[in-house]
């Protein structure tokens, strides 16, 4: 190759044309660098300030310490709030995944009267602003003299998570080759066996993805929670309430830990997927 490059009888491409082409090709790459920097500024800030030796208010950099990471419950309310968020998140995930998966199978696998209005009912909660969902549920609870708190919050979370579960699982079902199920039946599996041995394992990644999505939606929700949780403090609510006077560095620790945990889960998921396709 290298000899050929130097061969004077081979016509070469002018340098100028090459440079303008290079720039055109790399303009988007340069943009990507700026874009990702912008995306990661708050994450980097949150992570950096989780090491701040700040005392109560974590507004100004006062020095490096690992204390916050060693003792994430140093600010007592943080861990209490985190515990509530996790409990609510898990319960909301379980209920919304079960209900949503059943609906997804009904809509994705069967043709029946009322299918398009079913689709509409699933779409509506996603098209309704959170504040309306939260406020309307609160007025229902108040009308029936139910006090806001833990269970009303769980219910509220299930309402908005169900639609996302349906959409995610439905997409997975739609991508399934129906001939696989026909093949199973051809090979003497009855409906139930076909479902258990073929359909469910194939849809499982979609359900797992939906559950993860539901958990992260629930865990991160503030507006609907704020309306229905009464005096119960969740993690986002804690951050909101303490935002004015500066949140404790332990909250940054938890935020950063969540970031790395979620990143690990997503990357692990990608690796599993890649392994399977090989």
């Amino acid at each position: 190759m290298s000899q050929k490059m130097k061969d004077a009888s081979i016509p070469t491409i002018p340098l100028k044309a090459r440079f303008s082409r290079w720039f055109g090709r790399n303009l988007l790459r340069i943009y990507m660098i700026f874009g990702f920097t912008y995306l990661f500024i708050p994450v980097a800030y949150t992570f950096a300030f989780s090491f701040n030796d700040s005392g109560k208010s974590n507004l100004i950099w006062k020095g490096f310490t690992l204390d916050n990471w060693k003792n994430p419950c140093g600010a007592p309310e943080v861990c209490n709030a985190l515990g509530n968020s996790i409990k609510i998140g898990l319960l909301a995930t379980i209920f919304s995944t079960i209900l949503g998966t059943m609906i997804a199978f009904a809509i994705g696998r069967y043709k029946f009267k009322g299918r398009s209005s079913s689709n509409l009912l699933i779409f509506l909660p996603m098209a309704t602003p959170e504040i309306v969902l939260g406020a309307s549920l609160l007025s229902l609870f108040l009308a029936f003299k139910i006090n806001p708190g833990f269970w009303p919050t769980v219910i509220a979370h299930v309402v908005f998570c169900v639609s996302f579960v349906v959409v995610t699982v439905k997409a997975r079902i739609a991508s399934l080759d129906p001939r696989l199920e026909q093949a199973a039946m051809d090979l003497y599996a009855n409906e139930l066996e076909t479902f258990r041995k073929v359909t469910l394992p194939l849809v499982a990644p979609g359900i797992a993805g939906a559950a993860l999505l539901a958990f992260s939606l629930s865990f991160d929700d503030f507006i609907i929670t704020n309306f229905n949780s009464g005096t119960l403090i969740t993690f986002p609510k804690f951050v909101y309430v303490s935002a004015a006077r500066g949140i404790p560095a332990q909250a940054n620790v938890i935020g950063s830990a969540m970031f790395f945990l979620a990143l690990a889960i997503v990357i692990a998921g990608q690796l599993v997927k890649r392994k399977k396709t090989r």
Partner: protein
Amino acid sequence: MSFPKVRVPYLLLLPGFAFLFTFFILPIINLAQTSTQTPVDGGDTGQYEQTLAFSNYIQAFVENKEQFGRSFLYASLATIFALAIAYPLAYAIAFKAGKFKNILLVLVVAPFFPSFLLRTVAWKQILGEEGFVVPGLRSLNIIGEQTTLTSTSIAVVAGMTYNFLPFMTLPLYASLERIDPRTIEAAGDLYANGITAFRRVTVPLSMPGVVAGTLLTFIPAAGDYVNAAILGSPNTKMIGNVIESRYFKIVDYPTAAALSFTLMVAILILVTLYIRKAGTEELV
């Protein structure tokens, strides 16, 4: 399975739809009812009776038309900015990333793993008086001594733009990724230069993603009050802030309900018009 086959889908739907009916449809109906109630004469705070007072709506709207306007303005601006930032990003990942596609997709979503609230607070502190940006800009004389970055409408819009970015990027990516790159090559082959090929082929083919992304950004942005509360000032209050304070501070449920209902209907009308205009109804 012993039951007749036709019933299977209905049985599968039953628990979920019963739940949604009780905790989504009923509350909306209840909200509509509450919105036309008036306080009981001589009753306690929070006691109301049904009087079909539609005047609640007029009053609520007249008192808060500024906040309504702001909500739709801010949400529109945030949607436009998010589209402008996300489109090249999604395009680059879909067409230029090669084998790094999956990693970059993860990186697009990753910043949104730490809590929504933490991100917003982080921006407040980065751009605040004690952060490093404002003093830096001041010492370089780019902004004056009085200028602040937080507590402005710009900060609120910027915060919303950032926070709803993944809702824009992911649908855009999904529809861009589906485009056969050969159709874009074909446009080039048929005498369209880069810009024309983009305008005539790439953009029309990515419209489903644009529609989905703008809806997924605009709807939550219009009802949001967190960004306005943390990054804004009393002069940047949105309709969400009003509804929140009517519920929790003033305890005026009918007005709050009327405002919520108006917001919902206004968004539904806008969304319907928008989908009609954009000509894509395959969203659901």
